[in-house]
Structure formats: C-alpha cells, structure tokens
C-alpha cells in the first residue's frame, strides 16, 4: 500500500491511479468531496452506464420494477415472464414484511414464472404467457396480475401488453404489464420509473370511494423492509393521520385504487417514487413533500411538517405530544449507547436514498460519516431537485416512457390554493423540495456515485471506518477485512429502523456491531507481535 493520502482530492487520485485511462477518466467525474451547508454544490456524474468488467453493486431494471416497487404489493400476483432465474432471485430476498390483514390475501411468499424454455424463445412466448395467466387465475383467483418482462422477452418481441389486455377482458380482473427488461436502463432506477408509470396508468384512481379521516396521506417510497412501514403506520395513527396507501410496502391493489383520495403525498425514497408524487399532483392536485422517517429527529421533523400542512391546531398539538413521548424513550437509549459509539466512523454506499437517510441515525450516535454514495441515483438525489431542468436526457433514459399527465377532468381538485401553498412555504414547508445528499456532507467526506469493488477496497484500506453500509454482495468482502458491514437493502434480519422504535433498534444494532469482540479475535496469540519465544514457565 502506498503512503496514506489525507484529503479527498489525493484519495481520489489514489482510487483511479491503476484504472485503464478511459475508466479513470469516467470515474473521476463521479467522485467528489462533500460540501458545507449553504455552499454551492458541484455537479456529480450519475445515472450513467456501468463500465463493463468493473465489479458493480448495481442490479437491473427488472430488479427495480418487480423486486423493489411492485414486489411488495401483497394481493397482486406478480408474474415474471422469462426464464426461471429472474423470478427465482426476486423471491423473498428483500424482506418486505407483510401483514395479510382481515382479507387474508398474500402472494408475497410465492414466486410465479412462465419459466420459458428454448421452444418459447424460438417460437415466441405469448401463448405460454396467456396460459400462465389463465393458470394463475384458476389456481389463485387474484384481484390483479402484473406481468414483468425479462431480457430475452424484450429481444424476441413478445407483446406482453396486448396479452395483458386480452386476458383482462377475458378474466375481468386488473391485468397490466411492465416492459422492464434488464438491459433497458443503467440500473434498477429505470425499473422504478416503469413500475410507477404502470401503476399510474392502470391502478391509481380507478375507484372513487369516501375515505374516512380528516388528515389523509399517502406514503410513497416505503417498502416495509424489516417492518419499517409498520412502525411508521403506528406513529401516524397515534398522531391522528389516516394512511390511505403505502407505495408499496404491505400494499394492496385496493389501496392503490383509492390513493387519489389522500390530501397529501409524502415521499420517503425520493429516487424510486418521486415520479408518482409528481404525476399525482398534476392529475389530482395533491401536493407532496419529502419526508424522512429514518432517525428519531428526522422522524419528528417529518411529523411536524406533515401536521403543519393540515394547519389544524388539534393535530399539531397531538403530534407534538406524540413526539415528546417517543423522543423520551429514544433519549434514554441514546444516553446509554452514545458514549460507546461517539466519534466512531461510518461509510454508506447503498441504494438511491438510503445512503442519505441513514446519515441521520449515525449522527444521533455521534458517529462521523467519512463517505457516502448511491448505487442507482440521479443527479437530483445528490444535488437537489433544483438541478432537474439541467439534467441531460441520454439514450438510456429516452428508452423509458415518459407519461403525459393532465389534470383529471373529474378528479382534479387542488388541495390548497396558491396563496395557501405560498404561505406554508414561507413557514418552511418546501413542497416538491429535496435538497439532495451532498450539501452538508462536509468537505472532508467523499461522495462517490456507483462505487465499484475496486474503489471500495481502496477506500477501506485508506479510511478503515468502524462500520460500512452496503448490500449482501459487499458484506463478506468488507468483513474479511475486519470491518463490520450493515446491510441497508435488507437489514440482515434486523429492523425496523424507521421511526422511533426503529431508531432504538438501530442504536442497539450499531452498538453491537462496532463494539463486538469478534474483530479482536482475528489474530491468534502466536500471530500477534512480540518476542518469538517467551521464557516464562506456564504451569
């Protein structure tokens, strides 16, 4: 190893030194120092193609569409059209917890696939898909079936949308298809967009019912990993909000259908679901705000903002009471644990929002973030939404349908007047706002988009953080180096980490991980430094 570099620019040089010239040139644009609050934010390259041969954290469009967004809906039969693998790997591997509720419908533990064979590839798979839908209907009688195409399907040109349409007519249930072939985009992100478009086109707003409750909200971009959504539901209910639909942790097609009845959309994962928020605002007049329920303080802040939106004193008071009560529990645990975690260091390279959200939790433990980055984010997730108009549309993004959304002639109903919005805005409620990750990271932190294995290994050698957060593919690589890894895609059987109880779970897990004795056991007594022979006599 070379002598240790000390500042971000030097470290960046070290990271790209051994790369082939073209690779180095490309990677250089995705590596930046963070900035201090209020300082200008530099441009970062993101949402660009992965470099062939470079070990990547990323998955595919299908994974974003089926695995992330639609997968956690419990009463939809999610049918993968393709060879067996894609469907197999997205089967129960993301820990989307589910409570089937009184109606009892829950297809989450099932993997459905058309299991295409050579014959289907050569002669086309539409017939098999049609038959599979029929068989799914005969065996399971679901309310809805959603179809996902995989790479080979795109190539042979099966018209999955036509099949969906005819089968919908024949069976009289909702059936829609997603053209989410893995090669379509540069990462999972393309799949999120495709799923959102289809949910918007085929499900949201298809049922007009009165939803009871005074303060009706939707939660967008919350997938109930490790039970996060359950904790958020608990808190919202306690404060007096009515949750109409969650997209899409433990969700149902019925909830999606009536989601347009909500008066406020709240967005957790900005990357995956900001599209739905935008489209629903245009179509139904529902404003949206970014929230974050990861971190006790962040949760409190999000609740206050939600309450402020409804401008109801009773709701505001009740929310404050809940926050006070919950924070007290949290404080006891922080007081106990913080002395053991204070000053320790962490790095997070994960997802398309989590690398930002989880910084709050680390800060609450007094831990310092040395570096962070996203796996499949766009520039707005780093730099803030104000850069949206300046993002160039490249060939890979042009692949994905951009829906033209207009106000719904019957259902468009602005929830607030322009003046009301402006007034709330003045009070600090920034609608459609997201400031992104970079601002506030600090100049000595590293921001790296789409970090690869090579850079990860180098960073770990240089920084030796006390904990590293990424996914399962990275986990044991990092741990072999004697550094604990916390999975943030599926939490390693832990969680929930959202909300107040979640924060407490997190503190305890991180305390255990950074203070466990195991890392001190790596060397045997005879491997540690010291005299070769000791002349002491051991009885």
């Amino acid at each position: 190893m070379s002598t240790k570099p000390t500042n971000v620019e030097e470290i960046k040089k070290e990271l790209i030194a051994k790369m082939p010239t073209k690779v180095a040139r490309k990677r250089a644009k995705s590596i930046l120092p963070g900035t201090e609050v209020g300082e200008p934010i530099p441009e970062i390259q993101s949402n660009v193609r992965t470099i062939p041969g470079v070990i990547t954290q990323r998955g595919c469009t299908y994974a974003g569409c089926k695995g992330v967004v639609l997968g956690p809906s419990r009463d939809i039969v999610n049918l993968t059209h393709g060879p067996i693998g894609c469907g197999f790997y997205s089967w129960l591997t993301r820990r989307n917890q589910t409570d089937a509720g009184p109606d009892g419908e829950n297809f989450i533990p099932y993997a459905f696939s058309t299991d295409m064979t050579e014959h289907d590839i050569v002669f086309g798979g539409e017939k098999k898909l049609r038959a599979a839908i029929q068989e799914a209907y005969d065996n399971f009688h679901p309310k809805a079936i959603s179809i996902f195409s995989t790479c080979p399907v795109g190539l042979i040109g099966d018209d999955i949308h036509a099949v969906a349409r005819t089968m919908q007519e024949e069976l009289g249930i909702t059936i829609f298809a997603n053209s989410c072939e893995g090669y379509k985009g540069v990462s999972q992100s393309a799949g999120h967009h495709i799923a959102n478009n289809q949910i918007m086109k085929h499900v949201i707003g298809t049922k007009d019912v009165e939803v009871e409750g005074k303060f009706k909200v939707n939660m967008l971009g919350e997938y109930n990993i490790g039970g996060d959504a359950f904790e958020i539901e608990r808190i919202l209910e306690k404060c007096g909000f009515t949750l109409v639909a969650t997209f899409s942790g433990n969700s149902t097609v019925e909830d999606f259908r009536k989601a347009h009845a909500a008066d406020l959309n709240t967005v957790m994962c900005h990357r995956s679901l900001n599209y739905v928020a935008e489209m629903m605002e245009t179509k139904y007049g529902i404003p949206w705000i970014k929230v974050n329920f990861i971190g006790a303080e962040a949760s409190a802040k999000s609740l206050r903002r939600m309450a402020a939106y409804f401008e109801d004193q009773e709701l505001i008071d009740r929310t404050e009471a809940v926050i006070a009560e919950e924070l007290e529990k949290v404080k006891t645990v922080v007081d106990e644990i913080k002395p053991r975690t204070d000053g320790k260091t962490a790095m997070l390279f994960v997802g398309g929002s989590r690398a930002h959200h989880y910084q709050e939790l680390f800060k609450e433990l007094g831990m310092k973030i040395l570096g962070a980055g996203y796996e499949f984010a766009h520039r707005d997730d780093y730099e803030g939404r104000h850069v949206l108009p300046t993002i160039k549309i490249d060939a890979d993004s042009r692949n994905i349908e951009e829906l033209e959304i207009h106000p719904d002639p019957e259902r468009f109903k602005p929830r607030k007047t322009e003046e009301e919005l402006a007034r709330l805005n003045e009070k600090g409620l920034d609608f459609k706002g997201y400031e992104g990750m970079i601002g506030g990271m600090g100049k000595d932190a590293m921001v790296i988009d789409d970090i690869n294995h090579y850079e990860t290994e180098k960073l770990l050698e240089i920084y030796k953080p006390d904990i590293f957060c990424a996914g399962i593919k990275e986990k044991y690589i990092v741990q072999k180096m004697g550094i604990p890894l916390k999975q943030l895609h599926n939490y390693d059987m832990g969680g929930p980490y959202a909300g107040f109880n979640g924060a407490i779970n997190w503190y305890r897990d991180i305390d255990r991980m950074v203070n466990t004795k195991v890392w001190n056991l790596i060397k045997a007594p005879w491997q540690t430094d010291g005299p070769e022979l000791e002349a002491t006599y051991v009885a």
Partner: protein
Amino acid sequence: MALLRHTTGEIKERKALTVNPAKTCQPVGAMYAALGVKGCFPHSHGSQGCCAYHRSALTRHYKEPVVAGTSSFTEGSSVFGGQSNLITAIDNIFTLYDPEVIAIHTTCLSETIGDDLMQISQKAKDDGKVPAGKHIVYASTPSYVGTHVTGYANMVKGILKGFVKKTGTPNGKINIIPGFCEPSDMAEIRRLADMMGIDITMVPDTNGVLNGPMTGHYEMYPNAGATPAEIAGMGDAKATIGLGRWATADGVNFLDAEFKVPGHVMGLPIGLKATDRYVDLLRKLSGKTVPDAINFERGQVVDLLSDYSQYFYGKKVAMAGDPDQVLALVEFCITLGMIPAYTVTGTAGKYFDERMAELLKDVPYDCKFKCGGEADMYLLHQWIKNDPVDLLIGNTYLKYVARDEDIPLVRHGFPILDRVGHQYFPSVGYSGAMRLMEKFLEALLDRLDRDAPETRFELQL
C-alpha cells in the same frame, strides 16, 4: 393463518405456470464452478442484473465473498451484440483485478442474441487484451435450457476444454469431478481418496474458497481451488470419476472422448450405499486396498443405523432439490427404512424417472415424483396437503411449507439462506451419512418430544 394460504390440495393441471420453483438458472451454477479454479474471475456476459442476482444468491448461501464481472449490456448491446462490451470487460478485468483466468459464461440475453464466446475470446487475444500466461475459458449457459445444475456442468466442461492437455506421459492420477455440492463435500470426497493414498485432481474444488477463514485481509483469489497446471494434467490421468450424472457427465465424457481418459459417472456419494460405491470404484481404479480407517468409519454408520432404525422406519419424507442430490437422498432414506413419499426436482432428465422407479420398486407406498417444468414446490405442497409426511428435506424455501403443515424440515441443497453448517460439514461420505442421520433424528425426535403426551414423554431412547 397459513403463510402459503392460497395453496390447496386441489391439483389442477399446469402447463405454463411455475410456482415456487425447485431450480434456478444456468449462470449461477457456472459461476459457482468457476470459483473452484484457483485465481479465477467469473464473468457474466449479459446485462448486469443477472450477475448481481447470481452473486447475491451465492453470497447468501455461502456467506462468503463472491465477486464477478458483467458485460453490463444496455439496449444498444442487445441489438448490436455484446462483442465490444466483452472485450472492454476483459481488458478492465485483467488491468484492475489481475486474475490468472477469466471464466466467461453467457446469460439468456447474450445467448438469444447469439454472441459467440469462442470468436470474441479469440478476438480479445488477437487484440492483445489477454496478458501473457493468462487464460480465458468460457461456457454457453442459456437459462432457457436446463437449470443451475446444467450451468455447473457446462462450465466444468468449459474449464476442462480450456486447460486439459495430453502429453502422452501418464501421471497415474485419478480425476474427480464432484457434482454440484458444498465445499465441505468436496473436501470430504478428497479426504476419502487421500485416506486410500490416491493422488487425485479435483475440478472444481471450492473448498477453502467458499468456506475460507477470517484473516483480517480480503483475498480476491484464496489460496485454494484447482490450479490451471493441475487441470492441464487431467489428460494424462488414469481415469475420471464423475459424481452426479447431471452435473458431471459432460465433463467426464469430454475427457474420455478427447483424451481417452476412461470415465465413470456415478451418483453423489450421499448415504451408505453410494459412498460404498465411490470407495469401491476408487479401490478398483487405483488397485489399492481400502484402509481400516475407512472400514471403521463405515462401521460407525452401520452402528448408528442399527441403533436408531426404529425411529426412521416407515417415516414418510418429502423432498425437493437437484436431481443428483435427491436421487442419492432417496436411496439413503430407503436404506434407513424411510418412505420417500414425494420428490420433485426442477431439472428434467429421463434418467430421473427411471432411477426413481428403480429405487422405489420395493417401497410399500404409492410414492409420487416429478421432474422438470412444473415440478415445483407448489406441487409438492399440494401433494402434502392431500396426505402429509413426517419430514421435509430441501432448501430454505421449504420452510414455509414446514411451518404451514407443521412438519420438521432438514435443510439440504441450494440455496440455504437461513442456516449455516452446510459450507463446513459434509453430507457426502460416511461422515456425511452420520451427519445426515443426526439431522434427521434430531428433527424426528424433537418432534416426538414436542408432541408426546405427559405419560409418554421419555428421558431416554
């Protein structure tokens, strides 16, 4: 309420829909096989999603680092072919990760396009992208043909094709191609040969790669696995043994046809009889006597069996898994006096039906079995709904059935996500047979204890 609440005993014929598959796709097997070569970097030629999934699946199962490259196809490469992506990838991999070998496999996508790995690899060499002394091997692994087991077999053959030579000077060794099994199984297969004093070459050998130690350092290429030089020598060997028809026959036949190394394909040595056959073949091929130490271990298995057969006898078992694995397990269960009532494997093959019929011919029960397309865990569950069993054997996904039907589960096969041990302790050989018996017994006796009325709750066996 039941977890798989929508599963009923009403079995409707299915021709198109697979529900809860007892198999997965080719490349994951190819990636696993490649990891059993020392200094080898697996590369997935296709879009990056497959590679991410395969790495995740192997990582979850082994709880060890699994790295691999991907050609990261986008729409353009899907239309115009992946040659330039692959050549760039080869260049980047040798520069950044410095492996001895890159083992390339295809995915559904690159296969459907028709990318020719032989031609592209040659071009990479011609363009100077392959440093002197380094290698590329490859296998075609379309997932719409066969399963992860086929992918393993194809990559094994690809590795042999890439390295094996014949010098004309016999080296007196025996080649062993283990089927798709655990690193611990590969170690046990080798240990038995070592005990007999037989010099073997084993390909692939993932022992030490996917059950490695914690050292404080990450080694992309652990000091384990078959070396390219050893593999090259396989053409000069005395004989080849393939353990598992689906996973090894192609490789065995290749060595036979190309290098005139006589091949013997047998089952995985799971259970008493299969291990006997393995040891006996080693004896015949090498001309060595079986040492007392092996007879001792074998005697222990028989002892255990005679002591506890009362708890095995007549117990009904349902299992799902790879054909090489389940055939061996079915035979072992029958040896123990159990009834393999229901068996499914997602990997098709005529031999499966034949062998099952042969194994079951004296079993006093109308056992059901099925392989291929709709031979999935959903069907297995439906069979169980209609007539329950005492024990389940299969991968982690069967735990849902186990809980719903309140039947003990012994985890075996791929993938095991929620338990450890499989990487470290064998289920092949005599020691493996003892471990399996221990696991079966634990499951059955725990159940007995749990269900026993007060009057019949016993302290001892």
